[in-house]
């Protein structure tokens, strides 16, 4: 363990703090679910990229800052933003899932082509994984792609494609080798949402917004080279992506951000002039969550170190999504409770304008439930933790399909 800050680290900390102080008014409000980044968010993102506060370790040739991997640096940056309650940049499926997937298994050409616009927030990706009949059972995907004239020709249907209604691109898991076994018959394709034959039908969610979609494919054509790895490797690539999705969904900086925001609310005098932070039952709830957030952040530092050193974190990584999403839900729960009846007001401003705090927290609170479900529900996570993390046996195959009693 060596977290000693070198003079370089101290300088970075001062630099980030100064940056935030100078630019905080330019930052979009954090939280509140998924929207297409507006001008403000894109400008903010560009500013962060320029200073290396985002995509810091991604090579320059792919559009990143190209800094060597330094866990402390990343922690200093994340900490500064979350302490200040300032957006640390865009986190979407392209940035947090596709980019690391391409970095891990993409070709040089794919990296050069896609990573830059994605991390700048210009190219928005959506994920074509789930289907109506296979939500948790991803490998049962039935959307098929046959090869004709150097193209995959895609037919089928996806669901829960978040952001599909405003996305530019999709990474798609589909069946290209119908003769092979369930898991071996899949491929992982990249395709533009503007391709003819794609129809997106928004799915309104409980937040009242259309954060998800059903996406229908009718003879959609994609050049055969827009595949990540080879034919039949789709399940492998999808699992690489899922690994990063689990990390994204358990992001401890978001947790810290929420904790700080809630603490600040509790420091404000209420209608009766008293601060909730001065009430021990409230303070204890906040403290309990603070302890858990500290554990999550320390754990994340450990994982970052292990990643940097090429160590496979195994169990340590498998738990992140389940742990983080449940904790995020509890943090949002506390925030709503702190706001009390005024926190019930819910007047979302649509896709572009900023929402008020009550609306934002309510969206987060509901959206959290979506995150607990999406990216592999908590039950799926527990299967992964139990089986891959702890080595417990799989559920045996049923002799007869279980139905009603």
């Amino acid at each position, binding site marked *: 363990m060596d977290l000693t800050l070198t003079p370089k680290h101290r300088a970075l900390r001062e630099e980030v703090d100064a940056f935030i102080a100078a630019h905080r008014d330019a930052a979009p409000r954090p939280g509140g679910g998924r929207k297409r980044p507006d001008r403000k968010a894109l400008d903010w993102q560009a500013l962060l990229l320029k200073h290396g506060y985002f995509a810091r370790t991604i090579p320059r040739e792919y559009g990143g800052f190209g800094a060597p991997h330094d866990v402390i640096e990343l922690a200093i940056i994340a900490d500064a933003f979350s302490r200040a309650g300032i957006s640390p940049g865009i986190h979407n499926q392209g940035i947090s899932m596709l980019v690391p997937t391409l970095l891990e298994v993409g070709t040089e050409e794919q990296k050069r082509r896609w990573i830059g616009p994605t991390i700048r927030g210009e190219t928005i990706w959506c994920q074509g994984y*789930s289907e109506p*009949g*296979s*939500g*948790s*059972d991803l490998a*049962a995907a039935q959307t098929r792609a046959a090869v004709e004239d150097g193209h995959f020709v895609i037919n089928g249907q996806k*669901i*829960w494609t978040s952001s599909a209604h405003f996305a530019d691109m999709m990474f798609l898991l589909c069946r290209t080798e119908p003769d092979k076994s369930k898991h071996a018959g899949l491929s992982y394709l990249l395709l533009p949402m503007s391709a003819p034959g794609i129809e997106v039908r928004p*799915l*309104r*969610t*409980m937040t*009242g917004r259309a954060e*998800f979609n059903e996406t229908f494919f009718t003879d959609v054509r994609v050049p055969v080279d827009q595949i990540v790895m080879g034919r039949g490797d789709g399940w492998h690539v999808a699992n690489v992506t899922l690994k990063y999705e689990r990390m994204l969904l358990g992001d401890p900086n978001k947790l810290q951000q929420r904790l700080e925001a809630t603490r600040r609310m509790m420091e404000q005098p*209420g*209608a*009766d002039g008293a601060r909730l932070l001065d*009430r021990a*039952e*409230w303070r204890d*709830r906040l403290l309990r969550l603070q302890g858990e957030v500290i554990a999550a952040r320390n754990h994340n530092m450990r994982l970052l170190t292990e990643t940097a050193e090429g160590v496979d974190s195994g169990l340590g990584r498998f738990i992140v999504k389940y742990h983080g999403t449940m904790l995020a*839900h509890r943090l949002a*729960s506390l925030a*709503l*409770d702190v*706001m*009390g*009846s*005024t*926190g*019930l*007001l*819910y*007047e979302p401003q649509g896709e572009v304008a900023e929402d008020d705090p009550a609306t934002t927290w*309510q969206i987060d*609170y*509901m959206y959290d*439930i*979506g995150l*607990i*479900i*999406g990216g592999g*529900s*908590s*039950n799926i996570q*527990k*299967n992964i933790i139990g089986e891959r993390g702890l080595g417990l046996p799989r*559920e045996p*195959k*049923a002799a007869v*399909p*279980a*139905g*009603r009693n």
Partner: protein
Amino acid sequence: MRFGLTEDQGLFGRSLRGFLADRLPLDALRRLAETGTGFDAELWRGLGELGLHGLLVPEEHGGAGLGMLDAALAAEALGYHAAPAPFAAALVMAVQAFRSAGDAEQQRQWLPRIAAGQARIGLGFAGLAGQTGRAALRLEGGRLSGALDGLMDGGEATHFLAYLADGRAALIEAGAPGVTATLRRSVDRTRALVDLDLAGAAPVALLQSSNDPLAAARRVRDAGRVMLAADTLGAAQNMLDRAVAYANERVQFGRVIGSFQGVKYMCADMATMLEPCRAMVWYAAYAQDAVPEEAAMVASHAKAHLAEVGREVARLATEVHGGMGFTDLLGLHHQFKRITFDRQALGGPERCRHDAAVAQGWVAA
């Protein structure tokens, strides 16, 4: 000498549920929720025909003269179906307010109008119940000024009953001079909140006939808390019922998901939390009428406990539905938000538990 519902009560609950199931299929509910006012004239009329308006109003004033347990059964049914209808404030707390602090003349004047569905009273309670938001009213020379946020059942109210810090309550006509009522859409689109700005408004009645106005106000608060607890009971039961039905239908990995212990145990956990709440709500409601020495304690406890259980059930039932639970497709979220509303209105669990401690003399108010 029995702990349970009477045959009449069972029948009443079932018929109300049947009525609501009939009137509020998902597409109708979705349409009514669009406005966010928590009111629909046709539904309101229908509920009136079932006797809901005058449920608690004494027979001499044109009501059914029933008790708080009957009202709780109604609240439960309304919560079960997420019905956009004024109730807890307009038909329970308001009646309780008149009965506990209105003089004979005020009761004679207003209770029949409530029972007839003509007076729909939004009610604001602020500091006395742990509500947040503005709560600064001044009564000077018979005129009321200031601001009071978050009045319940205020969406299409004809009147507002605004509590003062001293426990007295002023009845104000909607639209009267000096009255600005701003509809605020709440996350629960089946129930709105109203922010009231008053500039020298003239009350049409001032409820101040109680010897102990604060105690009278607390009884109104307690009645409201029991209703919100009952509403959560209904909403959570609805979510559990639907989760079980979905788990019996949905196939994944070649099996009905309810046959997986993972899903089954989520349902079992919900049932284990929720089932004892039913008797708790019954008793809390009954105690308001019949066990005065426990009424305040059990009302606050029921509100707090149902809020905690409700939040867990709301999450778990949504989880059982997977992605479908998160969409608008099944409309499960109406009950989810109902539970959110019930929790945050009239004081959250910490505040309610504090009030329960006060009621037992464990701590000073």
